[in-house]
């Protein structure tokens, strides 16, 4: 199979890949708390897996993952969904009492870097540039959405945002979906024994394991993780299947973008 990992490609390989399929994937995700049972790189690794598998389907190049992401103080309503009072100052999933903070970076710093990379890829004549996001923070997604719009040149270059919360089956944090992914791709990093035994419900505030409905404003009355999204039920098979689903949907979007540029006579 042809190499698609940009950092391992020689100039002529990059040019050949671009001439066949002018698509570049930029996987991005912060180094962030993912409960005691998952590693800090979950978002970035997930973004990379989605981008790599999509790249295998479409061709093009996949940049090395950017281990960067942003957060800001969570608004009162979302804090209450998670089980807080609503007046706390909580940055992302760095909940009070956790022993280690996340490596979030300032939103505008992230924006400048992503924009610089997108512009570099445009100078290299890539026509479809996919920001493959592994992180759910609202301000990260709105930043990338704005950048994608601003850096697209209608009829010539499409910059699009995809990944977490766009093509993923799960919308939670460190729950079944992310744990299944890590079991599938980096099994040795997962330690389910770091969570209580299965008979004990997982409280949001205790571990920052959040299920999808909680993130969507529908927590359980006791602010615990729903059984069907409990990370202790995760399997590698599910993780593999999820990434295949995500990558295929990203690849379909890429093919549509390419077709629209082709249709525009680009």
């Amino acid at each position, binding site marked *: 199979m042809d190499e698609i990992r*940009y950092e391992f490609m020689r*100039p002529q390989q990059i040019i050949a890949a671009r001439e066949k399929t002018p698509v570049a994937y930029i996987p991005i995700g912060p180094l962030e708390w993912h409960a005691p049972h998952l590693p*800090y790189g979950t978002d970035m690794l997930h973004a990379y897996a989605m981008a790599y598998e999509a790249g295998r389907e479409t061709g093009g190049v996949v940049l*090395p993952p950017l281990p960067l992401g942003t957060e800001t103080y969570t608004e009162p309503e979302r804090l209450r969904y998670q089980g807080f009072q609503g007046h706390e100052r909580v940055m992302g999933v760095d909940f009070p009492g956790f*022993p280690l*903070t996340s490596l979030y970076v300032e939103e505008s*710093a992230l924006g400048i870097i992503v924009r610089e990379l997108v512009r570099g890829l445009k100078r290299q004549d890539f026509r479809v540039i996919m920001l493959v996001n592994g992180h759910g923070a609202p301000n990260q997604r709105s930043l990338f959405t704005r950048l994608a719009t601003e850096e697209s040149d209608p009829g010539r270059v499409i910059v699009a945002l995809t990944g977490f919360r766009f093509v993923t089956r799960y919308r939670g944090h460190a729950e079944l979906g992310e744990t299944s992914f890590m079991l599938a791709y980096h099994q040795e990093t997962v330690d389910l024994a770091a969570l209580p035994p299965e008979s004990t419900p997982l409280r949001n505030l205790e571990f920052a394991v959040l299920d999808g409905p909680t993130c969507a404003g529908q927590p359980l009355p006791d602010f615990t993780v729903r059984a069907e999204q409990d990370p202790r039920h995760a399997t590698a098979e599910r993780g593999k299947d999820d990434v295949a689903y995500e990558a295929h949907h990203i690849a379909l979007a890429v093919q549509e973008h390419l077709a629209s540029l082709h249709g525009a006579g680009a």
Partner: protein
Amino acid sequence: MAEIRYELMRPQQILAARDKAPVAYVPLGPLEWHGPHLPFGVDMIHAHCMALAAARETGGVVVPALPLGTETYGAPEGLRNRGFQGHERIVGMDFPGFPLPSLYIEESALGVIVIEVVAALKRQAFRVIVLVNGHGGPNHRALLTRIATEQSEPGRVAVFLTGALLDTQPRGHASRRETSYMFDVNPDSVDLAALPALPAPVRTFEFGILDHPTCAAQPAPDFSICPDQDPRRATAEEGRDHVLREGKSIAAKVRDALRAVQTA
């Protein structure tokens, strides 16, 4: 061996590593032209390898490599040493006629993000933060040197720059040394057939390959690479050996820095 790659570590593993050795390595290097025979990621891959080699000796954690680096227009003297007239506007290794520009980013953008990452590692109570650089751009190194100075807090946190041109000698670009790294790490990414066959000369301005004398302002009269730094002589064994020695050199500096902050 205990995991040292930050992205694969759970919180308790990071805490345990930090409590034993509060050292965080931040490898970085741009995606850049490295002759037709090497891949674009040489600098970041090399930086990551050096950081891992050092961390295996000192403990601590290695953050994933940042695929980022900067360049600016080459100074006239440097251009003349590479076989140009001196008046050309050439950014880094993007010589005229090359078919693909490098993915350099603006110097101030790089500065902002490196400061953010360093600041976050300081919040995690790392006491020695090591910027492991894979790239020789003068403005890139000057930027990182300034950031290291500014972000250090004497007696509490040491931030310092190491790696390319500090722990790697001789200097050069895409020459024998960098080619040997890639032979070791990912031999499939090296294609010596993309260069002319020996003994034909490899000229600096033609391929963007620089040897130490060229970097030290003493190029060959025909601007060709000297035989002992010719990439066509590189082997995986020497690449492995270089990285091990570079890792040891960095580890020695880290131990000194650690001792200084801990005794303070």
